[in-house]
């Protein structure tokens, strides 16, 4: 039908009315075709939207959102909106503190929160920014709730806790009044607001996230390099086999895929632990001392060894499928024209296999920087990744904002790498075979 329509429009001399009808028919047919294609992808689209885009958006939103104070302390937020903390004034000056009305608003808000049983949310949020605020808010709330509603609140609050007469604390309240915040990103980069409101690094003994981001990056890079070094010759060897033999070896490569990740990790623990198989062999061969065997696990080395093994198939498979498509005759032609076999391999085969290298490297590296279970189980102290810190904030400290900020940064880094990669090599050149 579209074919005949096309040939019809190509013919000049058709009456205008008929041409218009034909055109319309053609357009309708195309629209239907497009709609059909769209309907076919609709389930996948809905799936991705529901289970990927929306949760990802939720995470990004969570890393900025700061709803606690606006929702729980509306009166205080309204008054602090008009209060500007003076810049650079010496501390303790009365002018550095908000007006009396702000104190009354705090008291009224805390009283409401006490009866609604929600003051813990305020306490938890402020404690994330200022250790000790948890107790401060709880104490103040309990006292305020049992006082008559018309006290001289400035004096009362300052008597309950001297923190209420500190400009730095009010500056914190003012900052937390905003419905969006950069606090979580600051914390994720080991930064904080100083007492005078300027951003600075946290004390050296509390810095951890930048260290872990860098460690995650260099260890993942090293693991990627190791899988490439181990995987390239293997993939080359398999790709030069007869098909039936190659299939058998590929199954051997795939075997780990069919084994549970945990089982594989436990096997490594058995092998590498301080009196494990590897060390026993080393000791028996007098290559290591029995009293002080080398530490092969529960450190960075353990993470690298185990993750290299776990991720190896993700390198071998794309390499293999690309290499399989490179005919032997190319290298043979180069050799017959006088090139040394090594030179022929380097100048002909390697460049042709690059799309596979690109795919494998990208795949392994992106998988590695998000890895979580393996570092948690065999990483000890020096082999932890940033994802372990994200899990800690989700499950233990319940600081979901910080977890979301760390997650967003990790996602962002992955995207940036992807873009850089695209610029340098071109996503079109990546081939999974």
């Amino acid at each position: 039908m579209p074919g005949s329509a096309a040939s019809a429009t190509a013919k000049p001399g058709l009456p205008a009315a008929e041409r218009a009808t034909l055109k319309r028919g053609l357009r309708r047919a195309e629209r239907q075709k497009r709609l059909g294609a769209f309907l076919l992808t609709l389930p996948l689209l809905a799936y991705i939207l529901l289970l990927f885009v929306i949760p990802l958006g939720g995470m990004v939103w969570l890393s900025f959102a700061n709803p606690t104070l606006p929702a729980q302390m509306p009166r205080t937020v309204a008054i602090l909106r008009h209060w500007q903390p003076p810049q650079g004034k010496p501390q303790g000056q009365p002018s550095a503190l908000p007006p009396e009305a702000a104190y009354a608003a705090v008291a009224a808000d805390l009283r409401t929160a006490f009866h609604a049983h929600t003051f813990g949310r305020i306490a938890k949020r402020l404690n994330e920014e200022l250790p000790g605020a948890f107790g401060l808010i709880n104490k103040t709330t309990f006292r305020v709730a049992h006082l008559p509603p018309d006290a001289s609140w400035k004096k009362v609050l300052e008597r309950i806790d001297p923190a209420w007469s500190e400009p730095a604390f009010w500056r914190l309240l003012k900052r937390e009044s905003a419905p969006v915040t950069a606090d979580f990103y600051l914390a994720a980069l080991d930064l904080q607001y100083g007492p005078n409101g300027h951003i600075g690094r946290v004390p050296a003994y509390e810095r951890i996230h930048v260290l872990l981001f860098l460690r995650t990056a260099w260890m993942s890079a090293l693991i990627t390099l190791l899988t490439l070094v181990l995987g390239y010759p293997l993939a080359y060897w398999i790709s030069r086999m007869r098909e039936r033999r190659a299939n058998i070896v590929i199954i051997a490569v795939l075997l780990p895929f069919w084994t549970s990740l945990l089982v594989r990790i436990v096997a490594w623990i058995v092998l590498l632990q301080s009196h494990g198989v590897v060390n026993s062999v080393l000791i028996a061969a007098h290559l290591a001392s029995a009293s002080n065997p080398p530490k092969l696990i529960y450190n960075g080395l353990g993470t690298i060894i185990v993750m290299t093994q776990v991720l190896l198939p993700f390198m071998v498979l794309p390499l293999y499928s690309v290499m399989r498509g490179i005919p032997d005759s190319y290298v043979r032609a180069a050799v017959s024209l006088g090139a040394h076999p090594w030179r022929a391999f380097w100048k002909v085969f390697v460049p042709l296999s690059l799309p596979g290298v690109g795919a494998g490297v990208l795949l392994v590296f992106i998988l590695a920087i998000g890895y979580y279970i393996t570092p948690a189980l065999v990483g000890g102290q020096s082999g932890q990744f940033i994802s372990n810190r994200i899990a800690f904030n989700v499950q233990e400290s319940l600081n979901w904002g910080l977890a979301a900020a760390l997650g967003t940064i990790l996602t962002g880094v992955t995207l940036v790498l992807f873009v850089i990669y695209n610029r340098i090599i071109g996503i079109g050149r990546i081939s999974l075979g």
Partner: protein
Amino acid sequence: MNESDRKGKPGVLPISRRDLASLLASLGARTSGLVLLSSLGTLARSRMAAAAAGTINLCSWGGAYQFSQIEGYEKPFTKAHGIGFNNIEKSANGPALVSAQEESGNVTWDIVDMLQSPAFQLDSQGILQEIDFDKDLEPAPDGTPASQDFIPGSLSGDGKKGAYVSTISYSTVFAYNVKAFPADHPPRTVQDVFDLKTFPGTRALEKIPAGNLEWALYADGVAKDKIYEVLQTPAGVDRAFRKLDTIKRNVVWWSEGAEPPQMLAQKEAVIATAFNGRIFDAIASDNQPFAFIWDGGLYEWDGWVIPAGLSEDKLARAMKFLRFSTNTTSLVAQARYIAYSPARQSSFKLMQELTYYKNPKIRMWPYMPTNPPHLKLAIAKNVAFWSNYGPQLDQRFSSWLAA
């Protein structure tokens, strides 16, 4: 069951390290098939009971601890009221999951076993059911109201109403392998633990700041009742970390409760901190040559909370179970299965002759952390302190470890 009790402090893993540890152990001796069969049996029974009078979705810590609750509370309760249980083993992430359920508006757990400090935090966020202790809990057999019978500090709120009821206290204590030291001169105090010269060897400590900082100060000469005062100052924290620095090179870190007994048994460490129930289990069930250093034992409460927002019939069932499981005799019944102390004073009187369910020769009382001679040596964990400074100190601790 070898994945003994719990208190694997909120493990970082969805698949906890405990599962792994038990897997490792079952490579050795135990039969996991039996575990599977017995849990199938429990499932079948709870399904049948569900048909009769509904079930309670109960979340606890799994392992030997939840086993003691099933034997001590759940089975007698089902017998008496025909209400079954759906046992969930997620308390390690309990606070996070209760928060998440509340936020999604779909509360699926009816009663949750939790430590005191997170229970307090959740309560002040308004997501736990309020409990009137004297009305909702049973009085002691002699008529003493519950609020008077529970040990001071083991209930929450103002002691009359609150959202949290302790069932047990457990203690994180130092234990050592007796074969590693001369019989006439074993380590006896926390100071000895920090004395590498007289008592050489590796120490195994839990990978969290709580406890380690207290012990460091205690060993450095701070009086027990002044520890948290000192720790509240930056100089005090510095002092604690300096003391920890002196043994850092000789420490291996654990994060799941199953690890320290294994480390002691394999002599990967000669002294370890551990949950007292674990060490008891190793001594009583596995005949391990371990001994306790009760000095400086850090004890803490653990008990029930009921999430807010349950439907009326679910709430009624949960409250009924709360009342049943926290009465004097239920707490004693549980103590036959695990060496954690009941929270009620009236239970103590019934415990003097109580013996271990596996071995009638072993009396439970000498192993209980609230046994007066032990209690005298103990440090009460300051829950409020860790609510305030936990996040900050954890970050510093992680940074200290990673350095």
